[in-house]
């Protein structure tokens, strides 16, 4: 039986608007195992991003518990969780969110500077990851000279370079063409397997969902099995 990496227990999330209180997640529970490749689908506004933010520890639930490796991290502030995120979580965003003034190499290197002190180790990790995502010959390229797909590969390399236990990807292929989308998802899946990293991916693209081991659909603030 797989060991549980991440748990949500009866998590709810509410937002106060001027007019009313909106409940996005309702008593949602979820177990994510080590090495899972998991997708969360749902209509626009269904709360995929909110759920991903909570899993990615950049948002807090209104109620319920969040456990990582069995430890309850619900009460820890987001600022205090920054160290935890740096050590354990990688992020891939829809619009890549790379630092435009840095090269491909420097973008992957940047978060590692705050994890490791050994220059050699950082260099080896960055070069390995960029080679792994197929950008070995474009390491020193400025981002402006890379295509959308290549930039997303840089983002994947950045997310995985720190050997996180969990990578959270919020619609990473939404702004890419079909061929690039499939190659990016395949890359994420392969690398997740290769580095024993859990991948949680939000999407509404059936082609992408097909790659996942666990497929969830978010409806009325709760998860239902996709298939």
């Amino acid at each position: 039986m797989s060991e549980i990496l991440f748990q949500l227990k009866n998590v709810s999330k509410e937002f106060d608007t001027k007019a009313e209180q909106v409940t996005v997640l309702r008593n949602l529970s979820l177990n994510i195992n080590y090495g899972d490749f998991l997708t969360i689908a749902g209509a626009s506004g269904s709360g995929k991003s909110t759920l991903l933010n909570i899993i990615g520890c950049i948002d807090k639930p209104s109620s319920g518990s969040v456990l990582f490796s069995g430890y309850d991290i619900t009460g820890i502030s987001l600022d205090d969780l920054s160290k935890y995120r740096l050590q354990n979580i990688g992020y891939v965003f829809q619009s890549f969110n790379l630092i435009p003034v840095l090269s491909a190499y420097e973008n992957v290197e940047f978060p590692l500077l705050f994890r490791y002190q050994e220059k050699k180790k950082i260099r080896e990790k960055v070069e390995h990851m960029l080679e792994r995502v197929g950008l070995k010959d474009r390491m020193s390229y400025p981002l402006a000279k890379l295509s959308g797909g290549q930039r997303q590969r840089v983002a994947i390399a950045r997310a995985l370079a720190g050997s996180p236990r969990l990578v959270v990807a919020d619609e990473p292929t939404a702004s890419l063409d079909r061929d690039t989308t499939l190659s990016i998802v395949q890359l994420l899946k392969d690398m997740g397997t290769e580095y024993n990293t859990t991948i949680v991916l939000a999407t509404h693209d059936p082609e992408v969902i097909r790659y996942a081991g666990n497929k969830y659909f978010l409806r009325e603030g709760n998860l239902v099995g996709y298939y």
Partner: protein
Amino acid sequence: MLDQHTLKFYLSPRKITSPGDVSAHQIPGIYIYKLLKLSYRNLFRNRRGAAFAITIGAAGFAALSIAMGYYQYIMYGLEELTIRNGFGGEGGSGHVQIKDIHAGLAEESYAYEFGLGNVATLMKALGDDPDVDYILPRIEIGGLISNGDKVLPFKGYGIEPATEARLRNGLSKIDPTALAGNEILPLGREDTGILLGRKLALALHAKVGDALIMYGTTVDGAINGTDVVVSGIMSTGINQVDKYYLLTNIKTAQQLINTDKISYAAVMFKNREHLDEKQQRLSDTLKARLPLAPLRLLDWKQNAEFYTSVEETYSSIFIFMGVIVLLLVALGCWNIMHIATMERVREIGTLRAIGLSVPVINMIFFLEAMFIGVISVLTGFLLHLLIAALINEYRIMMPTIPGMNRGYPLRINGVSIYHLWLSAGIIVAISCSSLSSFLAIRKLSIIDSLEHT
């Protein structure tokens, strides 16, 4: 702070560890240059904003540099004026003055009780000091002066015209157009000659060559009179003083008051460097050569009440002005840094999401502001050199100061140690403007930042 439970989590065996792991809340020292590189490149993201901030900083630096150069020039001028000319007609203070130990500190029982006697021995001892360039013996006199029809009070000095002229001639270093000292030279042509203050001459209807009678009190308390001839008419630069001022030869003055003493001797060293050491050596020499003479040495600043008060006033004005300019520079850059922050909200959210702490992100903006400060200083320095060169080249004349009767040329002194302080001030002021970024970043939530478009 993380609680014990979470700490245990971080230390759990499944954590990916390495001997080189460091805390995300620390900025690794060996990678600070990476942050510097990032901050430097960020400057070029909003070129217009950065250029505007640099312009503000450079203009502030140049303005303060020029003000400081002007301040240094006028203070140097004032120092030289104090040493070589004085402000009340008393003559320049010289670098050091030799007085009787009681002079100015106790009341005299009779006139010139605290004057300096045995002048020839004193002058020889002073002249033998290798640092001494020349000596200016002086005697203060006061009394009445008459043209036969009209009697007016006067106050003045008995001097050695040649050395006094030499002392004042030194002012031409500051203002080459000044003919300081030349007006005294006619006094040397005749032993009984006098130079009258402009307004005093006017009141006496005196002109060069006229005979007048000077009256004074002798050291014995008797009234004495001596015939004098007007050798010239001069101005002290202060209209009020010109109404009663006169100069005469030291011998004529001594004859009037019936003494061979002098009031004091001013001493000029060969240069102004290491004045304290030179003064100390001179003091030691005098103690050795004239052990019984009760002498006191005063450096030029101890006699320079006017200089000291002006220095205090001007320093206060320039410091106040400097603080205002630094505040304006900081406020000008504040808004630019705020805009730079708001243009990168999503990036800030990303950096926080991937685990960088807020202090690390603040550091990026701080370094960015610091770069603007450094570039501003370099640009401002060049601008300062250009403007200073133009001002010095065109010899702009400043208006006459109230109470004086002559303007002075505007000059800007060159680079000094104070430029380092000014550079630090500008860099700190601009770096402080990154506080606007800190405040903006503190208010941003990670989620809102990532959703920012």
